[in-house]
């Protein structure tokens, strides 16, 4: 039977920040968005349950999908279902739509949020590699004001984020990139309701007009303590066309730079080899050979 820690449901951001900070002597608070991660923690079987909870669900300021300058802006409480249905997301962020469709199933997609996925900081979080590959930025808020943190600085260590204890994710900004290609691939434990064994987001542009890839971003989850950018492999792909030689070199490089682990879901060697093969396949498909 799960515990039922005390919770407050603030009606606006000011109340939310105050609730997060709490009174002197209060135990640390954990925010709850859609609850798909935090509610499981209440059983106490997966580590200590939270002692105090701040319910964000009433904060409409954290909702909505819009365009702002050169970016799609998603409120932190945007659910996966909303992402999938959003015309803006379908047009500008198809990789994110694809990722959202692979998470859980209908029930999870109706409640899980983009902000929650980011804040939970699981190495297997399915939207996280997409955030990295698309150069997303998280806008964080506190009583002290707002600040922006790039996705590739947002997850510094295993299950840790750049959030201060009194901060919330307000929204995610995902810049447009005209001509950007994005590919997403999740290798899970089954075809729905699955945690990934390897999850990958690959983005590039044809910046020079001759088919060579530029601005390459290769991000992966479930192969490290945090979601990562595969920097050595990006360097190999940068400036190259998607030929068989490029694919072979990229696959070798990726296999060489990954240090995955054995766990209950899979083996280190499977992850390493499959990540390389998935990348090889993506390059092959892009090259059409």
């Amino acid at each position, binding site marked *: *039977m799960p*515990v039922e820690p005390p919770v407050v449901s603030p009606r606006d951001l000011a109340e939310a920040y105050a609730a997060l900070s709490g009174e002197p002597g209060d135990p640390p608070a954990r925010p709850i968005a859609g609850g798909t991660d935090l509610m499981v923690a209440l*059983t*106490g*079987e997966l580590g200590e349950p939270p002692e105090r909870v701040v319910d964000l669900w009433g904060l409409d300021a954290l909702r909505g999908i819009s365009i702002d300058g050169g970016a799609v802006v998603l409120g932190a409480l945007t659910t996966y279902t909303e992402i999938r249905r959003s015309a803006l997301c379908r047009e500008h962020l198809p990789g994110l739509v694809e990722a959202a469709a692979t998470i859980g*199933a209908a029930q999870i997609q109706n409640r899980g949020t983009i902000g929650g996925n980011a804040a939970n900081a699981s190495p297997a979080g399915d939207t996280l590699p997409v955030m990295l590959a698309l150069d997303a930025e998280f806008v964080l808020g506190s009583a002290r004001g707002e600040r922006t943190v790039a996705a590739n600085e947002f997850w510094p260590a295993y299950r840790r984020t750049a959030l201060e204890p009194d901060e919330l994710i307000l929204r995610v900004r995902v810049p447009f990139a005209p001509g950007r290609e994005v590919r997403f691939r999740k*290798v899970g*434990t*089954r*075809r*729905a*309701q*699955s*945690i990934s*064994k390897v999850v990958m987001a690959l983005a590039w542009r044809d910046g020079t007009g001759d088919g060579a890839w530029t601005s390459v971003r290769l991000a992966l989850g479930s192969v490290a303590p945090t979601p990562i950018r595969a920097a050595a492999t990006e360097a190999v792909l940068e400036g190259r066309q998607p030929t068989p030689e490029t*694919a*072979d070199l990229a*696959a*070798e490089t990726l*296999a060489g730079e990954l240090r995955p682990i*054995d766990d*209950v*879901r*899979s*083996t280190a*060697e*499977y992850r390493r*080899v*499959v990540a*390389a*093969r*998935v990348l*090889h*396949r993506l390059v*092959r498909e892009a090259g059409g*050979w």
Partner: protein
Amino acid sequence: MTSRIEPPAPLVVPPETVVPGRARGVPPVRREGPAKLTGAALYADDIVVPGAWYGATIRSTDAHARFVALDQDPAFDWSQVVLVTAADIPGDNIVSGIKADQPILVPIGGEIQHHAEPLALLAARDRATLRAARHAFHVRTRRLKPVFDPLVSTHEFASYTIGTGDVDAAMGAADLVLEGEYRVGHQEQLYIENNAMIAVPRDDGGVAVTGSLQCPYYVHSALKRGLGLDDRQAQVIQAETGGGFGGKEEYPSMIALHAALLSRKADRPVRMIYDRHEDIAATTKRHPAIVRHRTGVTADGRLLAQDIEVVMDGGAYCTLTPVVLSRGALHSGGPYRCPNVRIRARATRTNTPPNGAFRGFGAPQVEFAAETHLNRIAERLGISPLEIRRRNVYVLGDTTPTGQLLRESVAGEEVLERAAEAAEFEHLRRRHERERAQRGGSGTVPGSPLRTERTRLARGVGLALAWHGAGFTGSGEVKLASVVSIELTGEGRIRILTASTEMGQGTKTIFPQLAAEALGVPVDAIEMAPQDTAIVPDSGPTVASRTAMVVGGMVVSASRKLRARVEEATGGRFPDAYVPYARANGGVRVDERFEPYPNVSFDDETYRGDAYPAYGWAACVARVDVDLDTGEVHVRDVVAADDIGHVIHPVLAEGQVEGGTLQAIGYATIEEIKLRDGRYLNDRLATYIIPTSLDAPRISTILVEAPFSGAPHGAKGVGELPMDVGAPAVVAAIADATGAWIHELPASPERVLAAIAAVPAIAPLPPGASEPAAR
């Protein structure tokens, strides 16, 4: 201040619905259906028992240890909770079973034999207190050296040797001798309703236990022995049960004893409802097995000699292992004629949670091995897997390795041909051969496992055939001496009294159906008494696919006897005569005791004779797509042909085939338990993976009827048969797609990729193996 819900206003009653395509005649609607569809059916956790406390179990975190002490934090107010240890057990500290080796609770100073073994019990008024109390305990143990490898363990629970002919001579004369070793791991039954029991003290010093269970009288025996009660003081009532599949055959005795002990000490009702984690961590699983084949065949694929070794991992206590091993041994050659057979089977103890019954009960493990081995032989000889089976499958008049003459009810050929034809097996095989040739490889570049080939998806088709002995092995049914009663009450109501339980298979629909047909009355005129040991006789356990065949057969016999009695007494037809007769004469009750099937005899000592009164036969053709990049296998569709003797209710029978098939698909592909230090690592639904609707194939069912004359309705049982063929069909399909034979279940993506990329390090430990804890 909480409001009760008022019922919503009534809406328009919907029109009758008819399912098109069901041209067989409309079978009766499921009696127990509407309650399940509206949420009205009461499973154990739905039952409100005023004043009930909550119970919990303190379990071992060591696989093998001396239980030194149970320390209680003095700062906690222990007067708020009830604590039960082995010292509180009034009867024998034994969970009654085949061997008296499993304690209800390990006594202080006793030996812990597996992770999650129960050490003590707690009850409290509310769950917060219970949770706090659990944290206020400290269990002190002294570790002992565990044994995790069943091949290394020297403690044997059971062994059997079955033989006929001269295997060694025949092997010498064979054109081909092929060896193979096959390993299968644990499988969790994963009923969606966790184990649950509610114990309520009775006024006569006994206890009434209501819960999720398959076998009321198994629990009844356990309560009598553990609590020192007589037949009436121990009362067991089955609640609506959300799936069993064997997982609630013997385990409920343990949880019932725990709840009963707590309720006795607390002198109040106690509820023990497991959460999913505890259920997976602590309850029985399918036995892991290692099966070795050495087979000699002629050049045209006829079996000359089979030398088979079966080793099963029983876990820490005996439970049902001897019977699982027995069925496994008897089925291990597959449904094939072979004049020279040697089967040596043993089951050993390891320091892991005890394994137990799961649909198929030893047969799925050994038939995976037998079928995969035969498919490999076919490939080696260049003979079609269909053709090699045609040449070897039992036909009427053949003799099995125990010397049983198959006199009737043999349908191996029929299910084989029907499945192969419906699935277009040979056509698909030829197509895949062409596709493989075009691909030019297994999907990997030799020596370069990181590179993909052009084609990503490979299609494959696989075939398997199995037999499954109907009912209990050997003299088991005679020993059970089951009883079913039909009662005509003084008011003229007809009631079936049986301990056979409903857990989804439709017992409460088919028994009235059988009785109604025999009596000539409408099915709605037949009632079923509740499965309460205070009311119904012991009809034996609801296992072994015996419910329709054996107990249903007894329902028919009893009904016929009742009909004869009333018609003789009145000179009229039963449908017209029974109500006036009942009202004039008071109630009539017919008690039908199991009659041994004529001409069926088995020697338990020598393992010779008729191992089963009849066999069911099943064939399966599975089509798969293999993702050559990742080794993922998607089973696209399955054709299942099952001979069940007589189809009592087509929708229910198909449901059994479909459900059993998907469990077999899960067994073959994604259901895996990894162990560390004897502890299951996959102990939540996020990590023990069963198929979702997107993983499930399309399943087409062909029901075949080769009736068994010993049963009055000809039925042979359906529940377990489909479990025996799904996995080898999938593994054969993977081989058809990739050229790689997977010898271990599950054929997970890791194992498939390891095989096709020729990188063994990709694969995990063999199934059932326990890795040591990280130091």
